[in-house]
């Protein structure tokens, strides 16, 4: 399929599915497509064929930026030692309901 690659046409799109209203969109995999409409249709047929989908997002895979494992220390560890962000950090006396 080298002739396809030279035009850069059929590219991977990442697919996100919302299984029901109110639920977040979840990443489910990719489809290959030439443009956004085709990517949506392909995602509908590939990831929505059993129902349980109320909304679909597609985005060119190349548009996704991700952290690397090397980032994980500086990115995420500093958040590990901030217990005051969690409710269990705070003490309230027993009778205080609905606080």
């Amino acid at each position, binding site marked *: 399929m080298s002739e396809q690659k030279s035009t850069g046409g*059929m590219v991977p799109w990442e697919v996100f599915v919302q299984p029901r209203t109110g639920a977040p969109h979840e990443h489910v995999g990719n489809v*290959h497509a030439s443009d956004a409409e*085709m990517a949506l*249709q392909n995602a509908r*047929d590939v990831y929505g*064929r059993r129902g349980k989908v109320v909304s679909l997002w597609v985005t060119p895979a190349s548009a996704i930026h991700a952290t690397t494992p090397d980032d994980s220390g500086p990115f995420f560890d500093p958040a590990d030692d901030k217990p005051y962000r969690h409710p269990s950090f705070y003490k309230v006396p027993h009778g205080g309901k609905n606080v």
Partner: protein
Amino acid sequence: MFDGRASGRPTSDTDMTTATLDPELRPALFDYLLRLGDDALVLGHRLSEWCGHGPYLEEDIALTNLALDCVGQANGLLGLAAEVEGAGRDADDLAFRRDALDFRNALIVELPKGDFGFTVARQLLFSAYAHLLYEALRESAFEPLAGIAAKAFKEARYHLRHSSEWLIRLGDGTDESRQRAQTALDDLWMYTGELFEKDDTLRTLVDAGLAPDPRALEAPWRERVEAVVSQATLTLPEDDFMLTGGRSGRHTEHLGHLLAEMQFLPRAYPDAVW
């Protein structure tokens, strides 16, 4: 255009079920349900021939979804036809044990699947018709048919979107795809007239509020097809000779082969259950 049931009105006492159907309407309704069911069955068969052979994996899956919609519709419609007939047959009897002369599908759906351009062009021409038809049939006074139509309408709308987007890409794609798409339209055009014919069966049902007048569907159909064809930078073929016959059992040579394949097992082993 069609007031079998006033739009939006919930089911009322005047709506017919199989039990309350006027016996005089039965033959026409049976005939009509065969037309709808056979269209879906035969088109579904042609689409199913793509399974495993599509132009790429995603589209293979898409074509099979279209086929599944059609076979599902056929199952419902032929089941209803059998009920209306009341002769103890079921959907499978109607699908697998009738010969070509008794099939009532339009000729356009039985033509061999051709290349992807032919399949797309047929899907456009047919689904542009089917989505208008089922939109109207949702209001049929025959309640079970209105129920099937509600689902079939949604499916046909998606088929229309899928085929429209593809025809636009093929028409406005490469020189080769453009030529293939135009050839397909030209080859198919003479089979489109049949979809809008009004015969005795339809006169009876239209008068009874069971089916929409097919002639009323033609103008909006043409408008939709024209819009897509023009966006695809293709040319709408000229109206010339229109070939008909499917609704009265006069088919092309292709249907016999299709049925020989489809019906082989139930015919070869008439007593077996599969």
